[in-house]
Structure formats: structure tokens, C-alpha cells
């Protein structure tokens, strides 16, 4: 391991919090999805770091499965963005207020 595990976890934690802040604070659907992407990549960095720390290959395998999951999630959520833009004419999350929530 080239760096201590704690430093790597700090970097991944900061990146995860930035993604979480983007997801919670932004109102554009595209930016919310980008925040989810940032969070998933922070988790991937943690997994690869754990794989290097314990000298086991399993962490890297989970990252590959995570990439497949992400591509499935992104394809279906972007299809929903296209659908909402067509139906409602906007992708601002605050405009979807038909249920008066």
C-alpha cells in the first residue's frame, strides 16, 4: 500500500460528502444524477483501497459489479429524465408538485 489507508478514506469521504451535498442541494435532475455518480465513485475508491490494504482481489471485483450496476442505473434514470422532460416540460425537481407535497 503506497499511502496509509486513513488518508485514502479521508479523500473518499470528502468526495462522498460532496456528491451527497450535490444530490441534496441541487434542483436540476441532471445535477442530482451527477451527485449520485460522484458518490458511487467515492465508494469505488474505498473498495479498491481496501483491496490494496488487505491484499485481496475481492474489492476490485465488487467495483466491476458496481460499474455494471451504475450503467444500468444511469440508463434507466436518464430515460426517466427524457420522459419527464417530454411530459412536464421541465427537469427542475421542485416543479413536480401535482401532489401538493
Amino acid at each position, binding site marked *: 500500500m503506497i499511502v496509509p489507508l486513513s488518508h485514502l478514506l479521508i479523500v473518499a469521504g470528502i468526495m462522498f460528502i460532496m456528491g451527497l451535498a450535490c444530490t441534496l442541494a441541487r434542483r436540476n435532475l441532471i445535477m442530482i444524477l451527477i451527485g449520485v455518480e460522484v458518490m458511487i465513485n467515492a465508494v469505488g475508491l474505498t473498495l479498491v483501497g481496501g483491496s490494496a490494504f488487505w491484499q485481496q482481489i475481492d474489492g476490485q471485483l465488487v467495483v466491476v459489479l458496481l460499474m455494471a450496476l451504475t450503467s444500468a442505473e*444511469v440508463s434507466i434514470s436518464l430515460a426517466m429524465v427524457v420522459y419527464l422532460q417530454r411530459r412536464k416540460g421541465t427537469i427542475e425537481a421542485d416543479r413536480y408538485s401535482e401532489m401538493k407535497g
Partner: protein
Amino acid sequence: MAATIFYILSAVALIATLLCITRRNPVHAVIYLVHAFFALALMFYLLGAPLVAAWEVIIYAGAIMVLFLFIIMMLELAPDESEHSTSTWKRWTPVLLLALALVVCTLLIMGIESVVGKEGVPAYYASPRDFGYALFKEYALAVEVVSFQLLFAAVGAFYVGKKEWRRGGRK
């Protein structure tokens, strides 16, 4: 040496992510996120995961981000750039600086012979052969489940993205 490059790359990744989540224009956000993914790929390589690093570039930066750009441009979500107040140089400087840092780090990684650990022992390195054996022997069931999930996602995306929502139904 490798540790220094790792810290530089983590700084690049964090700065690019910070710039990404604060952009108003989604296209700019995607461009900064591609920088962050390239930095993450180099970090994966330094941590002994060359195959994951390659897939990070191919799948995330290559496929998923291009899909984002495609949707943004298809729906015309990017705001108009013509009456931008800031100058061209001010907009291009952060992108160019981050790209320059990434290129320099790539050349430095190519320069060092092998990624050596802190105590001088070689760091953990998973070759693509070990990776393939582990993936298709121990995790064969997970691969099948993920492939089914990709199929379902493709079908679902096709269904949601259809122009006519229901034939003869609402609109």
C-alpha cells in the same frame, strides 16, 4: 514518489469534483467530472488495479458521461453561452490546469519502474489473469445476476423512453 503522485491526484480529483458540483451549466459539470474520473483511474492504477483503472476510463468517462452529454444536448438543457460575462480565458484556465496536472501525473507514472510500497516492498498488484479467474470462478453467480439486471434496465429504459406512452391511451 508514488505516494506524492497519489496525493497530487487526490487533490486534482477533489478540486475537479468541487468545481463539478458548483457549475450552473450541466455540460461544464460533466467535463469537470470527466477530469475527476481520469484522476480516479490513475489512483486505481497506483493502488494495484490496472484493469479497474482501464474500465473506469472506458465505462465511466467514455460511456456514461457521453450518455449524460447526449441527453443534455438532446433535450437542450444547457443555458445559452452567447451572453457570458466572464472572458474565455477565465473559463478555460481551470480545465486546462487540471488536464495539464493529469498529463504530467500520467507521464510520471509511466516513468517510475514499478509501484513500490512504503517499506520498499512491492505493492499489491492484481493482474488481469488473476482478475478474470476470480471473477468467473468465485463470482460467476454475481456476473449472471448483473447481466440480467442490465437486460432489465435496457428493457425498462426502452419502455420509459418510448414516445407514445400507451397505445390508444393517454395522448
